[in-house]
């Protein structure tokens, strides 16, 4: 049974969500502010965090920042106020794996949790498969990314996206495909998740040694990992 850490200052909402998620057979722990959430982290070892952005004491974004400085892989779903694009973008920039705007359909939340968890557990047994494109090497089994033999830390979502881009290096990957395969959900209206993850990837991977970009934006369609013969 997957463990979920739910961090939200709305106590009643937490209770309701806990009941709902338990009925979906998750184990749920609740923390009512960011600091308490971080404290729970070491005792509970959750598989996934669902966290509100607007919270007293330590808000969601700061909590996420702190969390990411210690633990890179733990998937995080952020709950944002609707229409607050800035929060979404900042959240994704800081390495959230997904976001949902409040009020949301709890089924949607549970579907996203399942998608993220499935993504992680599914990929793990993958034997000794290795993707290599030029100076980048990916080991899906150990979730390791080597750029020029130097290990680079990526979040779970970034890792998935990069894997798909490298698998189809030199081909255009549509945003739909990337969302469905890497985030295991459907592309939504105004969905900028992929764009933000790509932007993070670009920052973390930096340009190629010859100064050219790695990931090209194909306007209106998606992205492409550039290889030397297609530039």
């Amino acid at each position, binding site marked *: 049974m997957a463990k979920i850490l739910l961090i939200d200052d709305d106590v009643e909402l937490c209770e309701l969500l806990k009941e*709902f998620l338990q009925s979906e057979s998750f184990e749920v722990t609740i923390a009512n502010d960011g600091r308490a959430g971080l404290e729970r982290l070491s005792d509970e070892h959750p598989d996934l965090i669902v966290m509100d952005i607007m919270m007293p004491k330590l808000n969601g974004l700061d909590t996420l920042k702190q969390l990411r400085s210690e633990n890179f892989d733990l998937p995080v779903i952020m709950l944002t106020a*609707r*229409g607050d694009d800035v929060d979404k973008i900042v959240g994704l920039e800081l390495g959230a794996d997904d976001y949902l705007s*409040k009020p*949301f*359909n709890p089924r949607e939340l549970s579907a996203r949790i399942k998608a993220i968890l499935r993504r992680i557990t599914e990929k793990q047994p993958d034997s000794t498969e290795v993707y290599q494109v030029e100076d980048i090497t990916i080991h899906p089994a150990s979730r390791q990314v080597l750029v020029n033999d130097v290990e680079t830390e990526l979040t779970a979502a970034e890792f998935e996206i990069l894997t798909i881009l490298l698998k189809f290096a030199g081909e255009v990957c549509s945003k739909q495909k990337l969302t469905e395969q890497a985030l295991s959900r459907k592309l939504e209206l105004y969905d900028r998740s992929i764009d933000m993850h790509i932007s993070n990837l670009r920052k973390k991977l930096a340009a190629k040694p010859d100064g050219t970009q790695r990931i090209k934006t194909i306007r209106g369609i998606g992205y492409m990992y550039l290889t030397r013969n297609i530039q």
Partner: protein
Amino acid sequence: MKGLFLKTFVWFWLTTIITISATYFISSRLTDNNRHTHDIDEIVAHYFEEFEQELNEQGIGEFARELKHQRLPRGIGILLVDDHNNVIAVKRVPKPILQHYLDTGNWPEPRGVKLNIKAKAFEIDARQLTLFILWLPKKVHADNFDHRPWFKPFQRTPGWAAFRLLLALLVSGLICYFLARYISKPIVKLRAAVNQVEQGNYDNKVAAEFKNRSDEIADLASDFDRMSDEIKNQFQQREELLRDISHELRSPLARMRVASELIKEKIDASNSSEIDRIEREISRLDDLIGEIIDFSKLTNQSSQVNKQQINLVELIQQIIADVNFEGESTHKQAIFNTSYTRVDIYANKTLIMRAIENVLRNALKYSANDTNVTCSLALENHQAIIAVADKGPGVPEHELEQIFEPFYRTSKSRDRKSGGTGLGLAISKQAIEVHQGEIKANNGEEHGLVVTIRLPLSTQTIQ
């Protein structure tokens, strides 16, 4: 702000030039030799009379002593001699002239100047005396009898006056230039600061640039900074308040949404249509809260911030991609027609995007399935004109203006089946008007509604 600098400079300089010329003219008139000849004649006659009287009353010795302390008009000299040309009293007669007279018995005639001499003879105490009054034009001192020979040729040239005039003009011009700069420069700086605030940059402090001054302009600068701080504060408080309202209103909705889901699990699934209805109403309320908050942000002009150069062609393409993505299921499509690749406006991207999107969404909503909505972008009189035409039922003529009012629904669609919050077009109107644009609706030639948005172009960046 070259205007103010130029104006101040030109006006100050002109005033200075006029003052200099006037002073020069008047003073030159005053020192004109001929002008006072008549007056001097009178004065001389008066002096002869006075001196004769004094000589009679005081005697020669006393008169000579008194004369030393006597005040005489400028340029007048006096010589009193006896019949053997012995000097009894002298005042202000230049030595060379006196010497010449005593040696030769004649008065010299210096070059180029008129030396006026009047003489009168008296008989006092049985002595024959002659009193000379000389009035010497200034030039007698300056030129012919000056002890500084190097100065002479220079001073006498006609270029001297021109040189002095030129120097005066140059110096006054320089002073006026700095004065004009001193006045116009802080205003240019303040204006730049005002522009910054207009663009939402409240942290640009202007007082620091005036720390060398301690006058009203420096005060104005610090007042200005205080004002922009105050605006920033109010703006932030407002934003926070709206955020809090949004959060507080939506929290119960979020709880209701989870609760309704829990109910569904607990009851028979076939009876859940009322619960679905509750959920629909929750999401409708959620939309409404979002729109009301956006609308109130707009009506308070607090959204005048974050303006940037936007390429309308790209923006519309992006919006159309988004709305078409949503409309795929109903086979309604928006089509974009334009002959341009780049039309720049200076605006808040989010607002313009919302404005255009709401119009497009509205058009799609009222279109029949399997029809297209056309969006066109054209230019006219430095304005971008975006026209969105649908093939829906259109709007009765008398309601064309009202559709932009908040919560207005045309009589045909009052049943709310069409969905929406009733704020979409009102938000569009506000957002467009905040950008000095215009939005209008009219019925198309065949059928359907045409909404036309006009937005001022930022510069001539059209391709």
